[in-house]
């Protein structure tokens, strides 16, 4: 019999639609404004006591709580009103203290049975919910230079240990230059230094200078390491900032994308993310020390005071295991530091024989100034890296130091807490600078959603009216298919965890417009088969679907090719558009061909018909 689907095919189509509907469902439940509480470290678990304390604090501040619950390691407090979110965060942070991170969040209200099925709402992009987007570039030259500095420091130590006197060990123009006191030592030094340094190439020039350069492969590895290390550090810092659902991702060879939904204070986010502050602990130089072994630094808060320090570093902020803010006897802020095992060893070794000498804490910050200059009509970006170094404390070593100690003199409470945050979250392996930044206010996000949804609704309505007027009953089929298409598309986007952006919504709207194309092709074909070739309606339907299929396939594959290319080359907005466009093509093939056919078969199939409403 013509135009009948076997039962299994009918059931399969209905099943797909049913599953699609279930997975699209969570998007109908609005989200609650909420705050999320978690520990600064994984080991801190949130308990009901913490939640109760937070709730009581909120009650006292007059903020109404909808529900408080524990979710794994963290707590979630749902609020009644959107505008109380910020205030709630502050209240809770104050009542719980520094060990906890309180972040703004949006809590889904999806019923439990849906959650158990793995259904969830579609992720909204930054342009729809507000927030900050950063693109950062890791300064590779600086990473290499830093590594060379470390190696130079090791070389000095080795040479000293082997009693090979040297005039100079310094990093110059991307290589380490070693000048020994007597030329006869050159070969010996070279042999000695080459041990375990496969990453370096050693060359001696005519003037007796030993030049040490890093190999290409080693530089590549170092770059990878620097980016990975920076990723980890940035993740830690983002966690410290307290942002729900942040995104920190490598992008290309030396870039990192950071997206912080809901964050409005970009300036402070940027200061903390981009800070390359680090500490170095160094001994004050003896009076009779050689000048090439020493460096002179100013004090951070006393511009006219300077001190001469040894070039060698005892340890750095990288070896800090924990840091917190406290107050000293005079109620001045101090940073309590605990070093890790290695750092503690370095510290106790260095201080054991130097009781009575002074140790300085040196604060180092790598910064970049970006200027755009006009040059021969072209606008060129000029970045000038510069380093700010300053001593924050210089104190006499009273006794051998272990892994725990405190430093004072870091300035205001805010500065002390930012310093401790940076020490906790780790230093960046290489300086980074911002190459792109986008801040979207929450009101704009809301506006974008509303406008997007309105456009979808009205666009859909217009298409429906047009199709009904033009194709009658077959128009109804097409419209049902179109709606099913929207449901399936939303379900797919939700399940795949795709992020919906404004261009993504535009992609949906465009897909809806184009999705009817398949039905137009089919319907036009059926008509033609009837009126031109004189086929009976039943045969015309069959042949119309059959013939249109090849065309639809060809046309959609070429469009799909474009969507894939868009996806692979595009960034952010273009990608979002490509995702919805390509998924939309897939779902529209299903709905326009199979779903409409199902309906056509039900209405007209398997019986004698004189005419069809087309």
């Amino acid at each position, binding site marked *: 019999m013509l135009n009948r689907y*076997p039962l299994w095919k009918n059931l399969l189509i209905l099943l797909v639609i049913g599953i699609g509907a279930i997975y699209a469902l969570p998007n109908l439940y609005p989200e609650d404004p909420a705050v999320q509480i978690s520990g600064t470290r994984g080991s801190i678990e949130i308990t009901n006591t913490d939640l109760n304390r937070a709730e009581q604090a909120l009650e006292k501040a007059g903020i109404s709580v909808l529900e408080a619950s524990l979710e794994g390691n963290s707590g979630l407090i749902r609020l009644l009103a959107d505008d109380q979110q910020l205030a709630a965060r502050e209240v809770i942070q104050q009542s719980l203290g520094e060990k906890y991170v309180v972040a703004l969040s949006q809590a889904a209200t999806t019923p439990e049975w849906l959650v158990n099925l793995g259904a969830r709402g579609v992720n909204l992009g930054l342009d729809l919910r507000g927030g900050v987007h950063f*693109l950062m570039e890791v300064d590779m030259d600086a990473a290499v230079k830093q590594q060379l500095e470390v190696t130079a420091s090791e070389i000095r130590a080795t040479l000293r240990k082997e009693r090979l006197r040297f005039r100079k060990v310094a990093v110059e123009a991307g290589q380490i230059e070693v000048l020994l006191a007597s030329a006869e030592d050159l070969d010996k030094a070279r042999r000695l230094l080459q041990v375990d340094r496969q990453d370096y190439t050693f060359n001696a020039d005519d003037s007796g200078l030993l030049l040490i350069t890093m190999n290409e492969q080693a530089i590549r590895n170092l770059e990878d390491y620097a980016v990975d290390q920076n990723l980890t550090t940035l993740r830690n810092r983002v966690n410290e900032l307290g942002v729900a659902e942040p995104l920190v991702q490598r992008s290309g060879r030396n870039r990192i994308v950071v997206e912080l939904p809901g964050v409005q204070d*970009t300036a402070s986010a940027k200061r903390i993310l*981009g800070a390359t502050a680090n500490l170095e602990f160094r001994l004050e130089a003896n009076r009779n020390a050689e000048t090439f072994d020493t460096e002179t630094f100013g004090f951070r808060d006393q511009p006219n005071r300077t001190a001469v320090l040894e070039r060698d570093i005892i340890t750095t902020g990288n070896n800090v295991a924990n840091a917190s803010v406290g107050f000293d006897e005079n109620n001045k802020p101090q940073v309590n530091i605990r070093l890790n095992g290695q750092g503690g060893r370095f510290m106790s070794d260095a201080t054991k024989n130097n009781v009575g000498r002074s140790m300085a804490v040196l604060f180092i910050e790598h910064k970049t100034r970006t*200027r*755009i200059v006009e040059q021969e009509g072209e*606008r060129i*970006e000029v970045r000038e890296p510069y380093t700010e170094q300053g001593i924050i404390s210089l104190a006499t070593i009273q006794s051998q130091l272990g892994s725990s100690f405190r430093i004072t003199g870091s300035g205001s409470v805010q500065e002390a807490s930012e310093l401790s945050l940076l020490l906790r979250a780790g230093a960046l392996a290489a300086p980074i600078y*911002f*190459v*792109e*930044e*986008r*801040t*979207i*206010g929450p*009101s*704009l996000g809301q506006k*974008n959603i509303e*406008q*997007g949804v*309105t*456009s979808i609704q009205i*666009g859909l309505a*217009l*298409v429906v009216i*047009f*199709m009904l007027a033009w194709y009658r009953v077959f128009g109804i089929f097409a419209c049902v298919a179109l709606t099913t298409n929207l449901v399936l598309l939303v379900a797919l986007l939700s399940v795949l965890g795709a992020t919906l952006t*404004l*261009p993504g919504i*535009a*992609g949906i*709207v*465009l897909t809806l*417009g184009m999705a*009817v*194309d398949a039905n*137009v*092709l089919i319907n036009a074909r059926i*008509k033609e088969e009837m*009126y031109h070739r004189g086929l009976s309606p039943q045969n015309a339907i069959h042949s119309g679907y*059959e*013939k249109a299929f090849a*065309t639809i396939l*060809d*046309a959609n594959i*070429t*469009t799909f*090719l*474009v*969507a894939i*290319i*868009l996806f692979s*080359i595009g*960034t*952010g*907005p*273009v990608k979002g*558009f490509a995702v919805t466009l390509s998924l939309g093509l897939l779902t529209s093939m299903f709905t326009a061909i199979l779903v409409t056919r199902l309906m056509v078969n039900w209405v007209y199939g398997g019986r004698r018909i004189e005419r069809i409403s*087309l």
Partner: protein
Amino acid sequence: MTNNLSSKLLNININFMKLRYLAFGLSAVLLLVSIGSLATQGLRLGLDFTGGTLVELHYTNSPNLEEVRGQLETAGYEQFVVQNFGSSHDVLIRLNQGFSPEVGEQVRSLLDTQNADKVELTRAEFVGAQVGDELRDQGGLGMLVAMLCIMVYVAFRFQYKFAVGSVLALVHDVIILLGFFSVFRIDFDLTVLAALLAVVGYSINDTIVVYDRIRENFRKIREGTVSELINLSINQTLIRTTITSITTLLVVVTLFLLGGEMIHNFALALMVGILVGTYSSIYIAGTLLLSMKVSREDLAIPIKEGVLEEDGRP
């Protein structure tokens, strides 16, 4: 619209082959104007491609843009553009200078203190010049790769003359769309690039439908000249081409009117692109085949379709 009307529409027979010199002439003019404008004044590239800093502010009142400019100038800002964005309450400021974390807030507070009502920061964007360059290169590259892939696919499914024809029709659409943005000095940003690529997708879709019918008729109908067959195919697909354009335009116009300022240019690009794409599918793509002297022999070997038609699937 009655059944009568729509069945009458099936019998439309316009002699597109006769119109083809007119169409070629029109296209030539459009292309010349577009290329001329692109060559002389280029595109007004948006922030995404040039790099720079952009700050969008929301005023409770409607500020006088001249005053805002003056305030920025006195504060020492150089080379900036101030314009309304969407409504008279929203102001967009593009700065040509480098970025510091505070620039958005600085501009806001500067203008806030000099304005009676509150000024809110809606969004601040900064794109490094290098990133902009890369995006531009990627966009151009993407376009070329897309066209190449389409050419290969069409050559494989149809024949190389069809591949050349479809890609030429695409190049035609892209140049005219770029020309439109160049002539009217409309900001060309990342969303417009996305729209441009979508137009490529849409237009190829349209062209393939026409070509598909030409292929079918070439194999099926034994009488008639090549020119007649192409003309017949275009007429047969005309209704479909028009209706699809209408439905797509319906939603795109909705987006243009209601979608908000941020996708205004996106929707505009789609609107123009769909019109041009539809025109080229009807008037250019088919007739290009004629100019390339396509013949029945080019499609003589029936590939899969013959099988598809006969196996009588349920």
